[in-house]
């Protein structure tokens, strides 16, 4: 029973990572219908930025400084990719896929050349090293922290989307791009802002990964496949759906690991999503956007 509860909790913390890794994909797919194959490298970038920040600012507060640094760094990189590549290829989705895949390979190789293939270690601050006991389950503080960050990011996103002017414009472009532009909304700038925001969140995810293990040039690759599965299962672009799918898949993967090893559990994850989509092609949450348009 304890083992089960423990793994359930691990599932929730895995879900938090899945969510942080997939939110950006879901946002930009929802808005622009593009898939950024280099999204995983935004995680990697966030991880290396966390490592670099901690070299400069060691100590308890380092990780708290690393988070905005990684967010801004990944957002800037995302902005460059969007401006230089994705925007220019917007009419050719297949070319976007190939071009961003190329970017992904280039970024991985650059990391290998700069920091080596072995990877670097980020030492979590002392206040994240312990564990707390909750209902008989021993929970590592770092994992609790990751869950807290995911919840905060989700809340922040909801606040931006629902309560700010830019959020209103994002929703308008999402629901009817033609009408949004005819209403005077600078749709290109809205696209860019959303892409930067999504990349920034992925950068944050990278910091969280760095708390759990070494940062390697291919660290993003391990999370990008589950992130894609989350987006597909979540109904392609809906934030609520993405969140629900992240929780379901995180818990599923963690519980599967009670019986099989990690790589088999990843395969089971894929099978699970394929089956799920057979029965519910619209995803966990049916997106009402677009269909309601006259």
């Amino acid at each position, binding site marked *: 029973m304890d083992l089960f509860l423990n793994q359930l909790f691990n599932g929730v913390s895995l879900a938090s990572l899945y969510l942080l890794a997939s939110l950006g994909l879901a946002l930009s797919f929802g808005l622009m219908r593009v898939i950024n194959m280099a999204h995983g490298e935004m995680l990697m970038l966030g991880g290396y930025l966390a490592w670099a920040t901690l070299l400069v600012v060691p100590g308890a507060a380092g990780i708290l400084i690393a988070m905005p640094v990684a967010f801004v760094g990944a957002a800037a990189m995302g902005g460059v990719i969007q401006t230089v590549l994705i925007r220019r290829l917007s009419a050719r989705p297949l070319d976007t896929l190939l071009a961003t895949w190329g970017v992904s390979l280039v970024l991985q190789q650059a990391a290998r050349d700069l920091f080596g293939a072995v990877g670097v270690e980020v030492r979590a601050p002392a206040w994240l090293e312990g564990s707390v006991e909750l209902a008989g389950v021993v929970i590592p503080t770092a994992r609790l922290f990751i869950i807290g960050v995911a919840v905060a990011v989700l809340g922040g996103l909801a606040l931006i989307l629902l309560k700010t002017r830019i959020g209103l414009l994002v929703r308008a472009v999402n629901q009817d791009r033609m009408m949004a532009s*005819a209403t005077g909304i600078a749709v290109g700038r809205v696209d860019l802002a959303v892409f930067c925001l999504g990349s920034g969140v992925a950068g944050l995810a990278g910091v969280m990964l760095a708390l759990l293990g070494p940062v390697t040039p291919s660290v993003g690759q391990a999370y990008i496949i589950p992130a894609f599965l989350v987006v597909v299962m979540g109904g392609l672009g809906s934030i609520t759906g993405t969140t629900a799918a992240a929780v379901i898949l995180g818990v599923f993967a963690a519980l599967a690991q009670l019986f099989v090893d990690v790589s088999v559990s990843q395969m089971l994850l894929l099978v699970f999503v394929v089956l799920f989509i057979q029965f519910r092609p619209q995803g966990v949450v049916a997106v009402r956007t677009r269909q309601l348009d*006259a």
Partner: protein
Amino acid sequence: MTDALLEIAGLSAGYGGSRVLWDVDLNLMRGRATALIGRNGVGKTTLLHAIMGTRLASAGSLRFDGTDLSPLPPERRARAGIGFVPQGRHIFPQLTVMENLETGLSARGGRGTGGVPAHIFDLFPKLYDIRGRAGGFLSGGEQQQLAIGRALAGEPSLLLLDEPTEGIQPNVVQQIEAALAHVRDTLGMTILVVEQYLDFVWRFADDYVAMQGGRIVRAGKVAEDPAAEVAKLVQI
């Protein structure tokens, strides 16, 4: 500065290989309402989209208030002062009525300040009552009022409307008519309205242009030519 707010010359447009508009010339005079009429499929909607920039013209020139519109994307045209009420209304379905109106403020660019102008609720009091409701749940008449309100929120100098009375009950049609006459008469707004329902436009418009097969075949003043005669001529 000429009397014409919008000058269209030699405009052609189409979809893929098929051409829909042929060499359209049209001048819209400041502060006047022009009715654009014609049978289904003659290209009325296409012409409005070409003006708005949501469909690009393949040839010809578009001058608005002296500036060349051709290189501008739709949002820049909206900010230059063109408001658009499209066929089918295109309300943002998951935004509330108030939020839909607020999107319209984007068109102001640097002009004007403050929130949604109060006179929109004077013209369409119903919108105020339902301001918190999602756009997708409104009735057709409510959506049409909202689409017009959203365009007016941007304080345009030219208002394009595509069949605003399509499927709307008579008392709402009257309200729309009063609203359009009001913004023309008090704000000096220029209006181009596509309409099948001639009685409606003949009550408040100043000029008309009739299209056939993607060309403008007749133009005149509504006071001089009876609606029935024009209708017969262009086979509506």
